[in-house]
């Protein structure tokens, strides 16, 4: 069964550093998403991406965040200057029809 692949599975970074989280969506999917889950809390929407542009973003997704689909297969989330409160599990997801999702297994980001 096709999968969404996320790398790395765990990343530790110092506060103020830039991080890039990587995702390879399912190849025939057109809609791409990032979500995050702070430990013990619910999963929160960050951003959706379609046709090479952001289609919707949450208030969490401020100027520190950006997304890119650099080469037609990867989908990346960049956090420019990480804060302690950015520590969370970040999930990538893709969808063929924007209704049924497939999630990756997540990247656990720890900011120290």
């Amino acid at each position, binding site marked *: 069964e096709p999968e969404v692949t996320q790398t790395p599975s765990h990343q530790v970074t110092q506060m103020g550093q830039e991080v890039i989280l990587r995702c390879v969506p399912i190849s025939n999917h057109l*809609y791409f*998403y990032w*979500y995050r889950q702070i430990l013990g*809390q*619910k*999963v*929160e*929407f960050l951003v*959706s991406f*379609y046709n090479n542009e952001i*289609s*919707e973003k*949450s208030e969490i997704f401020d100027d520190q965040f950006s997304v890119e689909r650099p080469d037609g297969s990867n989908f990346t989330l960049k956090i420019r200057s990480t804060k302690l409160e950015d520590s969370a*599990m970040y*999930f990538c*997801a893709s969808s063929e029809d*924007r*209704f*049924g*999702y*497939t*999630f*990756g*297994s*997540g990247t*656990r980001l720890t900011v120290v």
Partner: protein
Amino acid sequence: SQQGEEDPQALSIQEGENATMNCSYKTSINNLQWYRQNSGRGLVHLILIRSNEREKHSGRLRVTLDTSKKSSSLLITASRAADTASYFCATIAQGGAQKLVFGQGTRLTINP
């Protein structure tokens, strides 16, 4: 906000018993989805029910949707220890929205 509550927040039952989890939401939806998350791991899609459907089955899972009450339930029959996980409902609103809005989840523990 779009999402309401899930209840119970935690449920502990004996192996072999049935587990029922409930979810409420606030807005008109296109569909409602249930996900499972093992501790600290990724989100596994279980079942999607559209707003014009009332009940759906998949193996030992049964999902109902009552749009007049804006609520859904997930029933797991003949529970197994491997069903121990957190279960989340998530909705996609009617109209152009693309994001999934998650509930807080129910932590299910199956005791052997």
